[in-house]
């Protein structure tokens, strides 16, 4: 069950900017695990939250070049449940002084860890996120055990009219936009196509084969106008980020990636007006303003964007809402190649939730770290100093700005 209990976001103040840096990243084998899960060869045993978390942690630790004894903090973010933090610490062979759960999706856990470091609660925190979404058979939308009275009211209140689930939300947002700005379905296809093209350069992505607009149009609808190829994956995986006090993060195995800014804005009322007519703009714009101000940068400084593509079209809401492009121009921006490598704002370069992995915003952060380090291989964005990540849902927005730190 999704824990919707909000975590308390630290304030977006300049004092907390760049006080901590990401020094290690670890991810599981999204593509290979997905294939194995689908093939279910004889003797196949599905992953568990514990097995996934352990793999991601070991990789992040190796990536950081640190010893276990350097890790004095552990936080757990298990969207669909998992071991208690102390249990996980003992499994991983850690004895951290800070050890606690830390939200679920990437809507605050990283700022919370940065604040804990700034307060002196720990110097080096391993943040672990893991979900076995596919293996536990989680379903999205419709009715069934545990689907009534859970989560935002719009996810279940309109069952009698057959309207529920995230895809129906995005379809309704998208349809209004199409009618208002005159965007054709073939043009919308460019967004999912662009993200898949990025994924084709990522050997760890679940879906790597590029598709044509004809193939897009021929793919089945989930909720029209959105096709199967517009909707995010459901897969198992884990991400571990190792975050260290900024002054201790220099001279390490990789260039540190500083957490420079974050923001948070939540919807309080008029949900459908904000969602459909305003295309989520009020909350995205406000949260973005906080993050830019905290980091001391603006849109022109951001060279790479990692948004929350639960549905393809949601990326358009985000790049417009954060002010990278005018409202109504987002699809044209994508069609012009501006979200590709070499474009104005390469977006979801690992393949996002649509084609790489659905890790509730965590894999987007790992990719941003690779990009800012300059270690993204053939999908590297050139000359990057600042990047923005965004977790945006139907009723909140949580952007972050990450910065390439000083190597020594």
């Amino acid at each position: 069950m999704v824990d919707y209990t909000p975590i308390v976001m630290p304030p977006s103040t300049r004092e907390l900017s760049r006080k901590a840096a990401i020094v290690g990243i670890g991810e599981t084998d999204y593509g290979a695990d997905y294939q194995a899960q689908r093939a279910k060869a004889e003797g196949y045993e599905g992953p568990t939250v514990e097995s996934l978390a352990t793999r991601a942690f070991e990789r992040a630790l190796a990536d950081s070049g640190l010893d276990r004894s350097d890790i004095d903090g552990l936080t757990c973010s298990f969207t669909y449940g998992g071991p208690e933090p102390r249990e996980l610490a003992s499994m991983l062979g850690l004895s951290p002084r800070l050890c606690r759960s830390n939200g679920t999706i990437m809507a605050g856990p990283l700022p919370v860890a940065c604040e804990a470091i700034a307060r002196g609660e720990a110097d080096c925190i391993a943040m672990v996120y893991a979900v076995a979404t596919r293996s536990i058979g989680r379903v999205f939308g419709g009715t069934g055990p545990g689907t009534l009275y859970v989560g935002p009211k719009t996810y279940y209140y309109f069952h009698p009219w057959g309207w529920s689930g995230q895809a129906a939300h995005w379809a309704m947002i998208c349809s209004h936009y199409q009618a208002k700005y005159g965007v054709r379905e073939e043009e919308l296809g460019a967004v999912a196509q662009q993200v898949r093209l990025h994924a084709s350069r990522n050997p760890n992505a679940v879906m790597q084969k590029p598709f044509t607009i004809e193939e897009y149009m021929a793919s089945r609808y989930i909720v029209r106008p959105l096709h199967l190829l517009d909707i995010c994956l459901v897969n198992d995986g884990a991400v571990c980020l190792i975050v260290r006090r900024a002054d201790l993060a220099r001279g390490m195995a990789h260039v540190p990636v500083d957490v420079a800014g974050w923001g948070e804005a939540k919807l309080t009322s008029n949900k459908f007006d904000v969602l459909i007519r305003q295309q989520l703009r009020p909350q995205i714009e406000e949260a973005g303003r906080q993050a830019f101000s905290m980091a001391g940068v603006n849109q022109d400084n951001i060279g790479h964007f990692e948004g929350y593509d639960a549905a393809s079209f949601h990326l358009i809401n985000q790049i417009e809402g954060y002010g990278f492009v005018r409202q109504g121009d987002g699809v044209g921006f994508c069609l012009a190649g501006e979200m590709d490598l070499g474009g104005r704002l390469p977006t979801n370069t690992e393949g996002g939730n649509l084609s790489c992995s659905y890790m509730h915003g965590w894999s987007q952060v790992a990719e941003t770290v690779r990009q800012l380090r300059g270690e993204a291989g053939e999908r590297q964005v050139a000359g990057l100093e600042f990047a923005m990540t965004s977790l945006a849902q139907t009723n909140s927005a949580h952007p972050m700005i990450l910065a390439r730190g000083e190597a020594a």
Partner: protein
Amino acid sequence: MTVTRPERVRGPLDDAFWDFCARGELHIQKCGECAGFTWPVEQACEHCGSRALQWERMSGEGRLVSWCAVHQDYYRGLLPLPYDCILVELEEGVLFVSNPHGFGYDDMSLGMALRLAFIDCRDPAGDKFRLPVFEKV
């Protein structure tokens, strides 16, 4: 003809909404303090938090704001696929998720005028209710 629809959220206030529907009327909660409408049903005003909510009857006139067609079988065979959902702005300003009645996906346009109607339904437990839907004017 009575059609089967997925389960409704139930509770004293929700049931009051459905009781109005059973009489062929659409009522939405209106705040006695800030005059804002709250939908779906809540204990307190979504705008100002006041508990002075009272039912207000809607005229039934509306305009189309958005639409979609559900192709995925979210309700495991309960609803014939595909089916259309619409978002209607009621004359009073409330945005209301509903279904079109007598017209379909290819016949929709932004701002088209709509009028309230009711269809006879039963929920999976067999309880009958009337569902507010919208027709073309």
